[in-house]
C-alpha cells in the first residue's frame, strides 16, 4: 500500500476521470443487488470512476467456477462474495464507505436494504429475482430511486447486440434482451463485462443527469 495522504491519493486516483463528475458522484449511494458476474465488475468499475458509497448485497460464497467472469481471485474462494469484494475494492481506494450485506434479497427486505440508495443496480443471475426487483419499482417507496437492470448476456453473440434501453421514467435495462444462459450458450466473461460496463456507465449518466432513448 502506498503511503500518501487521503487527499493526495484521491486527487491522483481520479485525475483522469471526467472533470466535474466526482462532486456529483459523492452525493449518491449506489446499491448493488448481486455480487456475481455483473455486480462484482460493476462495483469495480464504479469505484474506479470515483463512487465511494456502496451497498453490496449477496448471500453467496465465491467458488472456483465463478472465476471465469467474476472479479474475484483464487484466494477469495470460500469467502462471502460481499466481504471478498469489499476487500478487493479497498485495494483500489481504501477510503470507501461500503456496506456489505450478506443476505438474500427478497420482497420482505428489499425496501429496507436499499432505503438510503438513490440508484440500485440489478445484477442478479436468475429471472425470478430480476422480475422481483423490477416489480418492487411499482411501489411508492422506490418512487425517487433509479434502477439499472440487465437482461440477455449469455454466449458469444455479437457485442453489438448489447444496448441500454430506458423502459421507465427511472428504469434502464442493459443487454441483448434475448440470449439466456443454457447448456449451449454458457456465460462468458466478455459479454458479462460488456453488460456490466453498460450498467456502470448508465449509473454515471444518471448521476450526470443524462438519459437514454
Amino acid at each position: 500500500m502506498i503511503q500518501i495522504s487521503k487527499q493526495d491519493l484521491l486527487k491522483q486516483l481520479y485525475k483522469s476521470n471526467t472533470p466535474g463528475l466526482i462532486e456529483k458522484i459523492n452525493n449518491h449511494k449506489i446499491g448493488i443487488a448481486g455480487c456475481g458476474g455483473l455486480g462484482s465488475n460493476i462495483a469495480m468499475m464504479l469505484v474506479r470512476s470515483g463512487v465511494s458509497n456502496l451497498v453490496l448485497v449477496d448471500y453467496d460464497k465465491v467458488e472456483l467456477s465463478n472465476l471465469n467472469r467474476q472479479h474475484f481471485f483464487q484466494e477469495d474462494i470460500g469467502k462471502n462474495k460481499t466481504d471478498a469484494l469489499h476487500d478487493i475494492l479497498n485495494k483500489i481506494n481504501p477510503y470507501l464507505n461500503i456496506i456489505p450485506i450478506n443476505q438474500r434479497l427478497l420482497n420482505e427486505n428489499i425496501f429496507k436494504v436499499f432505503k438510503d440508495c438513490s440508484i440500485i443496480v440489478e445484477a442478479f443471475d436468475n429471472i425470478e429475482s430480476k422480475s422481483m426487483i423490477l416489480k418492487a419499482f411499482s411501489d411508492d417507496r422506490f418512487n425517487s430511486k433509479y434502477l439499472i437492470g440487465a437482461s440477455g448476456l449469455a454466449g458469444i453473440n455479437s457485442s453489438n447486440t448489447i444496448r441500454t434501453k430506458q423502459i421507465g421514467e427511472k428504469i434502464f435495462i442493459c443487454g441483448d434482451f434475448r440470449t439466456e444462459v443454457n447448456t449451449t450458450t454458457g456465460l462468458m466473461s466478455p459479454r458479462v463485462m460488456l453488460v456490466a460496463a453498460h450498467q456502470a456507465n448508465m449509473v454515471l449518466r444518471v448521476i450526470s443527469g443524462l438519459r437514454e432513448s
Partner: protein
Amino acid sequence: MKIKIEFVGYLDIKGVKDNSWINIEEPLSISEFLIVHNINRDNQKYLIATINKKIVPLTYILCDLDELFLHLPVGGG
C-alpha cells in the same frame, strides 16, 4: 380503444406486431389481453409491464391511448 404496444426479446405475442398501435374492442386488463393473444397466466409470472413508462401490475385495465411496454427478463449474470 387504441393502445400502443412495444415488446423486446423473445416475447412472441400472437397477432401483434412490436411497436404498433392496435384496437381493443372492450376494456381488458393487461393479463386478459395477453391471454387473448395466447400468453397464459403461467407464462405471465415474470413478465414486467409498463404503461406510459410506469411499472404496473398485470391487473391494470388498459385505457385509450395507453402505451404498453412488455419485458420478460432473461436469466444470466
